[in-house]
């Protein structure tokens, strides 16, 4: 497989997942807001921060209210990580590697792009239509994953898309969890406890994890157990730990993998060593930051081994 093609496939996986996860992040945040007691305050700005887009946002927008942030995250083509940009980038990458993909996969990625292009503006007119449009994105993206799983041979092309998807997913899960560390509740502790609990319910919901949490952990949502579930659970497919084992499986199927596997092992060791009992929001935030750094190191090892070994490329970079 051509290095350039491998790189494009990897980015298709990443961009599609980024688009989907941004949609999930917005929907869950909206839910948190609906459930928030009157005394609690919440800044939409946190979405920009967890996505790592503060600088990009401040450059162009004077204020960080809900409408502006939604526009920035959903429909702003100048924001390279907005949903529309992510899906556009996935499509452009798919266009350059169409010949290694099942024909229908390209058609669905193309359709997803046309959907968000045509419906994106509708997400800006209110919470009702927004939720519907974003669900449309999530559903279409899931149908692409289904087709991908059901119709692609487990060859190198498959592994690179899956690798990109799981690296992006692990990263986005840490970011969605991180939303909670920014929640600030003033007033009495009963309200604070209730608010925190609701926020974690919303986070589990965002990752379609609530029912699995109930089945495997318990009916009460507690910060420590929710965080542990989303980061360390071995069976839930969006947990960071699960993504790591998927990455492990991809790398095992690819040639010349030692450097990337070393980076993965290190990340896994850090994750295993995290103690989540009794931790405070700032400590959780630092944990998540470290984890994001580990994931970036895995990316760099993959890129160095498979994409850039012949010459430096001037195309995509990890920050895109």
């Amino acid at each position: 497989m051509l290095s350039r093609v491998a790189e494009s496939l990897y980015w298709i996986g990443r961009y599609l997942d980024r688009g989907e996860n941004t949609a999930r992040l917005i929907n869950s945040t909206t839910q948190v807001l609906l459930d928030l007691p009157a005394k609690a305050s919440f800044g939409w700005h946190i979405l920009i921060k967890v996505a790592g887009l503060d600088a990009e946002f401040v450059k162009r927008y004077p204020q960080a209210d809900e409408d502006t942030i939604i526009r920035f995250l959903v429909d702003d083509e100048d924001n390279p990580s907005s949903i529309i940009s992510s899906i556009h980038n996935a499509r452009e990458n798919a266009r350059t590697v169409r010949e290694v993909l099942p024909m229908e996969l390209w058609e669905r990625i193309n359709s997803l792009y046309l959907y968000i292009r045509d419906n994106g503006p509708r997400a800006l007119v209110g919470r009702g239509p927004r939720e519907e449009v974003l669900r449309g994105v999530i559903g279409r993206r899931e149908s692409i994953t289904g087709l991908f799983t059901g119709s692609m041979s487990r060859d190198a092309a498959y592994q690179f898309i899956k690798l990109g998807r799981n690296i992006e997913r692990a990263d986005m899960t840490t970011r969605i969890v991180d939303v909670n560390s920014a929640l600030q509740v003033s007033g009495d502790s009963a309200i604070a406890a209730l608010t925190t609990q609701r926020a974690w319910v919303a986070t589990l919901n965002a990752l379609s994890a609530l029912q699995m949490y109930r089945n495997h952990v318990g009916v009460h949502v507690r910060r420590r157990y929710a965080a542990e579930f989303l980061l360390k659970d071995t069976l839930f497919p969006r947990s960071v730990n699960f993504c790591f084992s998927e990455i492990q499986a991809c790398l095992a199927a690819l040639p010349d993998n030692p450097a990337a596997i070393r980076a993965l092992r290190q990340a896994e060791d850090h994750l295993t060593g995290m103690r989540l009992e009794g931790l405070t929001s700032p400590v959780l935030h630092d944990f998540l930051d470290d984890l994001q750094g580990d994931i970036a190191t895995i990316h760099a090892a993959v890129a160095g081994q498979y994409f850039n070994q012949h010459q430096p490329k001037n195309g995509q970079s990890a920050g895109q």
Partner: protein
Amino acid sequence: MSAPVQLLDYPQPGIYDELVDEKLRPRPAAKLLFDYVNRLGIAELLARREAVDAAIMAMGITFTVYSEAGNIDRVWPFDLIPRTMSKREWDRIDAGLKQRLTALNLFIDDIYNEQRIVKDGIFPAEVLAGSKNFRAQCRGMKPRFGVWAHVCGTDLVRDGDGTVYVLEDNLRVPSGVSYMLENRELMKRLFPELFKSSPILPVDDYPAQLYDTLAALAPQQQEKPVIVVLTPGIYNSAYFEHSYLAQKMGAVLVEGSDLVVTKDDCVYMKTITGLRRVDVVYRRIDDEFLDPEAFRPDSMLGVPGLMRAWRAGNVGIANAPGAGVADDKVVYTFVPKMIKYYLDQDPILANVPSWLCMMDDQREHVLANLDKLVVKPANESGGYGMLIGPRASEEERLKFADLIRENPRNYMAQPTLALSTAPTLIDDSLVPRHLDLRPFVLQSDKLYATTGGLTRVALRKGSLVVNSSQGGGSKDTWIIDLGDE
């Protein structure tokens, strides 16, 4: 009860029409389509068109226009009324196309070697001297089978009186064949009932034929040679086609930066496990950009050393570098003579009568009749840089007269042909629109021509320009076996 004779409310086109005769009755090859469309009725036809448009959008069949940087692809404009032709008529054209490409390849091989045709006084040395596409770097090369142009797109038109002419031979990097294949796919999706038990001949063996043509060029005979399609990248107008053909042939789609020529003069591609040897390059990049070592040093699209590898016999390239020497509208006028000279045969397909501006008497005729003629530059493609005399302003004609006088070798002129028409669905009715036909012909160890080809149609009323970059669309092309051979 007899079926209605007329095709919906199709008006009298006034000149030769591909589907109906002068009394608006269906030509034999169009009978099946005629009855079918009449049964459907206009409302159903319009509904199917909507479905077609949605399918094209979803399949992402696009082409790119150079100037539109921000919006790089446009949806391929497709007309759902096919163009029909009888197999009997097609068989004659098929033989003519193969004859023509055979002669053209003998010519190119001769030009880069002995130049007998020049020495024998058939082909003027001055035409060769003024050729923009002659590549001195190719002198003395003997590509396998003596074939240089492995893929040729031949433009055919039918004049108002019904005669089919060759308008030009595209021997550099002709495109359009993917649209021919996609058009048929669309028709089968939209009108499955038509293809069930019909005499419409299939077109889908082209990718396999192209694969065989290319595989025959591998330096060593081997079971599965590594074939790559070399594309300039996603901003090229034909990128869709490059990707499409690679996909259909199971070849690797590469850009220049994916390939490298090492000290052993072999071509390799950069893969996730290191370098892998390439046997055949189907290049969709013009000569000039192919190899910055041999041609334009500023080319970012090509592969440094590719010519070295080709000359050393370590890689097959299709079309061979330099094949474009015969893709020149002045050289075109000599093709009937080439056929006679190399094959000792009469041309099966006619050339459009042409005047060469480099010949003094012919130039005078052209300058005196600019309002009646079409004047073409020798080396442009895509319909750029030409003058359609009857439709041009006085000012444009004067400007063109100066261009001709400045560089007579670069221009030739032809009468304005009254291109034939076919019913085309515009807005909500069937109206006549002018069209041409581009079959694709392959040659390596054997010859092959597509069954029919790509029918291009000028969607604007009265327009004769069928190029997709200038408001043209396309149709499916049906060669109908009437069982009358």
